[in-house]
């Protein structure tokens, strides 16, 4: 009961206010939503956000899956060490980490200095203020959100199933692809949903590490709410993004439904 009241107070009430703002000004109106669809900039910002989020989710999975797998096969002590290594940056402020990337990836940053010192390149390459910078910065922040759901599922996979497959003549590759991978899919979907949803709402990293092609939807919401003080329009932007994310969440969990996935492998 207490937790329900808490939930209503801090979550549902502000959301309702947001919804009301977006539709009333002061009488009922759709003008804020009309404006949102009339101005191509907002749709472009949404495309930018989607592009960044898909990339970051895919890269987090590509890096996170092998890492989580590695954690399941090493000894307990090494696993603890790896977990700490993933967690330590997780406890550092996003802003600090973003600035650290600027020092590392900048025109006169560590990587460019090294590459030029080795004669690999003769002019600095652009590693930030573009999509690459945003990808690097955001994957770094979001990787734990991919690794931990994966690890959670992987550690509970019965390894005797893999052993059984091997003893029945499956190659290591086959055993992985047909036994381990399908069993780990609930972790994959959980990790992807989590990373994608968080990426959609990211603000600081794309703003600092991105270029003009990485102006996101959240950047516009911030501009409208903080600089233009147009809270009704800002609310409609927020409700719109929330609707899209909510729809995607429902879609994800239906399509990648966990029951079905685990059920299939057990059949």
């Amino acid at each position: 009961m207490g937790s329900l009241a808490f939930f209503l107070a801090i979550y549902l009430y502000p959301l309702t206010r947001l919804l009301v703002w977006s539709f009333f000004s002061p009488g009922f109106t759709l003008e804020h939503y009309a404006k949102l669809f009339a101005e191509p900039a907002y749709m472009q910002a949404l495309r930018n956000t989607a592009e960044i989020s898909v990339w970051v989710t895919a890269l987090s999975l590509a890096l996170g899956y092998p890492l989580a797998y590695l954690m399941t096969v090493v000894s307990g002590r090494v696993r603890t060490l790896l977990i700490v290594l993933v967690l330590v940056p997780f406890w550092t402020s996003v802003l600090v980490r973003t600035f650290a990337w600027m020092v590392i990836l900048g025109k006169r940053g560590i990587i460019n200095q090294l590459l030029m010192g080795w004669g690999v390149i003769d002019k600095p390459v652009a590693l930030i203020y573009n999509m690459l910078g945003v990808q690097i910065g955001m994957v770094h922040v979001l990787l734990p959100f991919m690794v931990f759901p994966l690890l959670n599922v992987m550690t509970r996979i019965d390894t005797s199933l893999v052993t059984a497959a091997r003893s029945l003549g499956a190659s290591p590759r086959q055993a992985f692809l047909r036994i381990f991978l399908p069993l780990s899919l609930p972790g994959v979907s959980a990790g992807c949903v989590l990373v994608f949803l968080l990426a959609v709402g990211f603000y600081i990293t794309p703003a600092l590490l991105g270029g003009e092609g990485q102006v996101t939807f959240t950047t516009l919401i911030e501009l409208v709410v903080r600089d233009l003080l147009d809270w009704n329009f800002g609310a409609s932007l927020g409700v719109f993004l929330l609707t899209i994310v909510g729809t995607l969440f429902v879609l994800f969990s239906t399509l990648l439904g966990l029951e079905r996935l685990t059920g299939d492998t057990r059949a």
Partner: protein
Amino acid sequence: MSVEARTTRRHFVKTIGAVGAAAAAGPFFHARPAQADKGELVVVSWGGSWAKSLREVMFAPFEKETGYKVRDDGPPEAAKLKAMAQSGSVTWDILDTDMPALQTMVKEGLLDPIDYSKIDKAKLNNIPKTLQSSHAVGHKIYSFNIVYNTKTYPGGKHPKSWAEVWDGEKFKGGRSFNFRGGIAPQLEIALLADGVPMDKLYPIDVERAWKSTDRLRPLVTKWYQSHAEAIQLVTAGEVDIACTIGPRAVYAKRSGAPVDVDYNQGKLGSDYWCLVKGGKNQEVAMQFINFALDGKRQAGMVKENPYGPSNSAAFEFLTPQEARDLTTAPDNVKRQFWINEDWWGKVGADGKNENQKQKERFAAWMLKK
């Protein structure tokens, strides 16, 4: 459907819930705001070294002289004040903020007019008329200037006009202009780059200014979000030229950064003292504003923070060495122009001021491929 499958789902939800809640909770926990009860004045500024000097130069002596306690809070964001006003619990008395923010606040009815009868005539005579507006009085002058890296352009070989900043052939190197951060977009500067003389900028030929900004676009490495970021970009050599606040460049230069400023064609603006509507101590607030506009006290502020004092009497208390680099030093101020706040504050038929309109257009422009 097995028990285990349901456990997996519950686990999935739990994992998402726990990690998500931790991530989401962050922004909701603020420090307790300062309370403006009777006998106490809350002055809201942008923080940093400026706020530290305010405490030493302004607040402490004011407390001693009047017996009122001064509390500081920040940042003086219009959105925060609007939220306070809507919830009916305004805890601020005085704001120290910039023109775009305060014009929007005036439009929203969040500020009270300045009572000029409470300010000494002698002080007002020394403050430029353009800084004495109905709801705000200027105290801290800065300008948007050509700020450059001195390693890229040593020995005075830097661009000396906005036309030269626009010239990517003659001056190689990356530029940075502000996307957010107070006064933006830089329409006057775009016009100067296009050859419009400094005294013919207003009313702004908006279309011409945007066309000129189109030409700047390919030269810009990074559209920055804050002035601190701009100085950092130039200092680190990430960009070679930035259009940003000169005083911050002077501050960086004094601390040894390879950064300098050319005041030529700078756009002068100011931060202002404003009265919060519904503030509980209006009398004392006006008393504080009068106190803070004193030339000697302003001089005390700008020794540490090289902004331009609005009261020209401040220069009597500065050594030539201290005064030379300031925005409003006679040699610097005469090469610059004042932003026309009436033009930017003009409210159109759609209820928006020019500043809001151009900011919206800036965002749309930025997102145009």
